[in-house]
C-alpha cells in the first residue's frame, strides 16, 4: 500500500511535472519561434513570389522586345518556354506599353467609377467604359494588324510612333494625376480646415468634460487623441477601393484622408437628439463620421447618466451636433463637387486621348504609306541597279570567257597545224622514199658495181703496194747487206737497219721484226761488223800463231814456267793443215784455217769455240767479232727469206 501510494504519488508528481514542462515548452516554442518563423517565412514567400512573378512577366515582355534575350530566356531559364508560349497564346507579344497603360488607366477609371457609384449609392452604367475600352482596343488592334501587314520592318517605326503616343499618354496621365492631386489637395485643404474645426470642438468638449468629470474624461479623451494622433500624420491618396471593417467600434485605423478628420467631433449634445441617425447617410461611405456620431451619442448618453453636467455640456453638444451635421453636409458637398469636376475632366481627357490617338494613328498610317512608297521606289531602284550591275558583270564574264576560248582555240589550231605539218612531212618523206625506191635500186646496183670495181682496184693497189713494199724491203735489205757484210771496211749500219726495220714493221711481219729487234737492241749496228777478209787475215796472221804458242799450256795452274815451256816447245811441233782430226789446239786451228779458207766463218767459229784455257783467252776477241758478224748474217738471212716468201706470196 505504501508502495502503491508512493508510486501513484510519484506518478502524479511526475505527470504534473511533465504537464508543466510541456506547457512551458509549448509556450516557449509557440511564443518565440513559430511566430517569428511564420512571419519571416511568409515574408520570404511573398517576396520570392513577387520577385519571381515580376521576373517572369518582365522577362516575357523583355523577351518580346529583345530577340537575344528571347533566346536566352527560352533556352536557359526554366519554365521560360512555357511562359513564352502562354504569353504568345494571350498575345502579350503584341501588347505595347501604351496599351498596358491604357488598360491600367481604364481599369483605374473603372474602379473609380465603381467606387464613386458605390459612394453615390447608384449604379450607373459601367458600359461606357468598357465600350470605350473596347473601341480603343479595337483601334489599337487595327493599328497592330495593319502595321505588320504593311511592312514588317516598319514595325519599328510604328513602335516609335506608339512610343511617342505613349509618351504623350504619359504626359497626359501625369496631367491627370496632377489634376487629381490638385483635387486631392483641395480636398485635403478642406479636410484640414474641417479637422481644425473639429479639433477645436473636441478641445472644447474636453475642457467641458474635464471640468465636469475628470475621472471619466480620462477614458474618452485617451481614446480620442489616440485616434486623432494617427490622422494628422497621414497624407494618402484616394480611398477609392477601401472597404471599411464594419464590426469595429473603435478600431485604431491609421487610415487615409479626410474621413478621419470628422472623427474628432465627439462631443455630442446632451439634448438627446442622437447624432448617429442624422449622420447615418454617411455611415457607409464615411464610417469614421459614423463612429464620431456614435461617440457623441455615447457622450450624450453619458451626460444622460450624469444629469448634473447636462446644463453645462448640452450647449456645447448642441453646437457640436450642428457643426457635425454641417461638416457632414460640407464633406458631402465637397465630394460631390470633386467627383463632378473629376468626372468632367476625365471625360474631357478621354475624348482628347481618343482624338489624339486617332490623329496619331492617321499620322502613323500616312507615314507608313509614304515609307512603303519610298521603300518600293528604293527597292525598284535597287533592283534596276542590281540588274544593271549584274548584266555588266555578266558581259564582262562573257567577254573574258570568249577571250579564253578564243585563246584556247588559237592554241589548238596552232597545235593542229603543227601536227598536220608533221604528218605531211612524214607523208612527203614516205612518198619521196617510194619515188626514190626505183632510182635507188639502180643506184645500189651501180654502187655495188662500183664497189666491186673498188675492191678490184683496192686489191690491185694492195697488190701493188705489197709489191712496192717488198721491193722496198728488198732494196733495204740489199743496202743493209752491202753496207754491213759485203763492205770492204768495218762501218756502222744503223741507218740501213732502221729503214729495213721500218719497212718490215709496216708489213707487220713478226719474224722479221723479232729478228731485227734483237739486232737493233745490241750495239752491233753502231759498231759495224768486221769484213770476212779482215777476219780471215786477222786469224791467220795474228791469232793463229799466238794460240799455237800456248797450245801446250795446261788448262789450270799454268804459271810462267808452263807458258814459257809451251812457247818453247810449240815451235818445235809440226805444222798441220787441212781438215785434220784431233782435239788438240793445233788440229783445231788447222781446221779453222781450212774453214776460213773456204769462207765458212760459221764452221771456223764453231771449231775455235771448242777450245779451252789459255787458247780460249787468246781467241776471245776474234771469236766475239766473228760471232757478231754471224749474228748479223743470220738476221739478214731471215729477213731475206721472209722477203722472198712475201714476194712469192704476192706473186
Amino acid at each position, binding site marked *: 500500500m505504501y508502495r502503491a501510494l508512493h508510486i501513484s504519488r510519484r506518478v502524479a508528481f511526475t505527470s504534473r511535472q511533465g504537464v508543466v514542462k510541456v506547457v512551458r515548452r509549448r509556450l516557449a516554442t509557440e511564443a518565440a519561434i513559430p511566430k517569428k518563423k511564420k512571419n519571416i517565412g511568409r515574408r520570404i514567400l511573398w517576396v520570392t513570389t513577387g520577385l519571381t512573378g515580376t521576373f517572369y512577366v518582365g522577362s516575357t515582355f523583355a523577351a518580346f522586345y529583345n530577340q537575344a534575350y528571347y533566346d536566352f530566356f527560352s533556352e536557359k531559364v526554366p519554365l521560360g518556354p512555357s511562359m513564352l508560349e502562354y504569353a504568345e497564346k494571350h498575345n502579350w507579344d503584341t501588347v505595347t506599353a501604351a496599351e498596358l497603360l491604357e488598360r491600367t488607366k481604364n481599369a483605374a477609371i473603372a474602379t473609380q467609377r465603381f467606387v464613386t457609384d458605390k459612394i453615390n449609392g447608384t449604379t450607373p452604367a459601367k458600359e461606357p467604359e468598357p465600350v470605350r475600352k473596347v473601341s480603343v482596343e479595337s483601334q489599337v488592334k487595327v493599328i497592330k494588324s495593319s502595321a505588320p501587314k504593311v511592312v514588317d520592318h516598319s514595325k519599328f517605326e510604328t513602335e516609335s510612333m506608339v512610343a511617342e503616343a505613349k509618351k504623350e499618354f504619359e504626359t497626359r496621365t501625369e496631367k491627370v494625376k496632377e489634376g487629381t492631386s490638385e483635387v486631392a489637395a483641395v480636398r485635403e485643404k478642406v479636410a484640414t480646415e474641417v479637422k481644425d474645426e473639429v479639433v477645436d470642438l473636441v478641445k472644447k468638449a474636453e475642457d467641458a468634460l474635464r471640468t465636469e468629470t475628470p475621472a471619466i474624461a480620462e477614458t474618452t479623451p485617451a481614446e480620442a487623441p489616440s485616434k486623432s494622433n494617427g490622422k494628422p500624420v497621414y497624407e494618402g491618396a484616394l480611398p477609392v477601393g477601401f472597404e471599411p471593417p464594419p464590426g469595429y467600434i473603435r478600431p485604431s485605423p491609421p487610415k487615409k484622408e479626410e474621413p478621419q478628420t470628422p472623427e474628432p467631433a465627439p462631443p455630442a449634445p446632451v439634448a438627446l437628439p442622437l447624432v448617429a441617425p442624422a449622420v447615418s447617410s454617411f455611415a457607409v461611405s464615411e464610417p469614421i463620421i459614423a463612429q464620431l456620431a456614435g461617440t457623441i451619442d455615447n457622450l450624450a448618453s453619458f451626460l444622460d447618466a450624469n444629469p448634473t453636467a447636462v446644463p453645462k455640456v448640452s450647449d456645447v453638444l448642441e453646437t457640436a451636433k450642428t457643426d457635425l451635421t454641417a461638416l457632414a453636409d460640407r464633406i458631402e458637398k465637397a465630394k460631390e463637387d470633386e467627383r463632378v469636376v473629376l468626372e468632367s475632366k476625365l471625360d474631357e481627357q478621354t475624348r482628347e486621348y481618343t482624338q489624339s490617338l486617332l490623329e496619331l494613328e492617321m499620322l502613323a498610317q500616312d507615314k507608313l504609306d509614304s515609307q512603303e512608297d519610298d521603300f518600293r521606289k528604293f527597292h525598284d531602284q535597287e533592283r534596276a541597279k542590281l540588274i544593271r550591275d549584274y548584266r555588266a558583270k555578266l558581259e564582262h564574264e562573257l567577254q573574258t570567257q570568249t577571250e579564253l576560248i578564243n585563246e584556247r582555240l588559237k592554241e589548238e589550231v596552232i597545235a593542229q597545224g603543227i601536227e598536220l605539218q608533221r604528218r605531211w612531212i612524214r607523208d612527203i618523206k614516205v612518198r619521196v622514199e617510194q619515188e626514190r625506191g626505183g632510182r635507188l635500186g639502180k643506184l645500189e646496183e651501180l654502187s655495188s658495181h662500183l664497189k666491186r670495181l673498188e675492191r678490184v682496184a683496192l686489191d690491185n693497189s694492195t697488190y701493188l703496194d705489197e709489191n712496192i713494199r717488198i721491193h722496198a724491203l728488198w732494196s733495204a735489205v740489199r743496202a743493209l747487206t752491202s753496207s754491213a757484210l759485203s763492205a770492204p771496211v768495218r762501218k756502222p749500219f744503223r741507218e740501213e737497219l732502221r729503214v729495213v726495220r721500218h719497212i718490215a714493221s709496216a708489213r707487220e711481219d713478226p719474224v722479221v721484226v723479232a729478228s731485227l729487234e734483237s739486232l737493233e737492241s745490241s750495239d752491233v749496228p753502231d759498231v759495224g761488223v768486221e769484213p770476212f777478209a779482215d777476219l780471215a787475215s786477222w786469224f791467220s796472221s*795474228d791469232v793463229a800463231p*799466238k*794460240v799455237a*804458242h800456248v797450245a801446250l799450256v795446261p788448262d789450270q*795452274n799454268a*804459271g*810462267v814456267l808452263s807458258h814459257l815451256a809451251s812457247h818453247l816447245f810449240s815451235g818445235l811441233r809440226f805444222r798441220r793443215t787441212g781438215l785434220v782430226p784431233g782435239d788438240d789446239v793445233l788440229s783445231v786451228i788447222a781446221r779453222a784455217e781450212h774453214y776460213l779458207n773456204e769462207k765458212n766463218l760459221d764452221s771456223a767459229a764453231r771449231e775455235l769455240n771448242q777450245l779451252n784455257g789459255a787458247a780460249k783467252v*787468246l781467241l*776471245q*776477241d776474234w771469236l766475239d767479232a766473228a760471232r757478231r758478224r754471224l749474228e748479223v748474217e743470220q738476221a739478214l738471212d731471215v729477213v731475206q727469206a721472209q722477203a722472198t716468201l712475201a714476194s712469192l706470196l704476192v706473186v
Partner: protein
Amino acid sequence: MPSSEDILGQKYDRCLADFLVKAGVGFSAGVVASVILFKRRTWPIALSTGFGAGAAYADCDRSFNPARIPGTRIVSPSELAPKPVA
C-alpha cells in the same frame, strides 16, 4: 787495251821489266851492302840479286796465274771427292 791475243806478250813484257828492276835493285843493294858492311865480299851482291829476281818471279807467276796465292790451293771437286775416303 790490247786485244786478247796480245795479253800473253804483254805479260811477258811486264815480267821482264819487273825482273830487271827488282834484280837491279837487289844487285845494287847487294853492292852497297858488300861495300859498306861486308868488306867488298861478292855473296851479299848475289844474295840480294837473287832476292830481287825471286820476288820478280813470284810476281810474274802470280800475274800468269792469279789464282795461285802462297799458302792456298784451289782444289776441284773431282779431286776433293776421293780424299775424304782416303
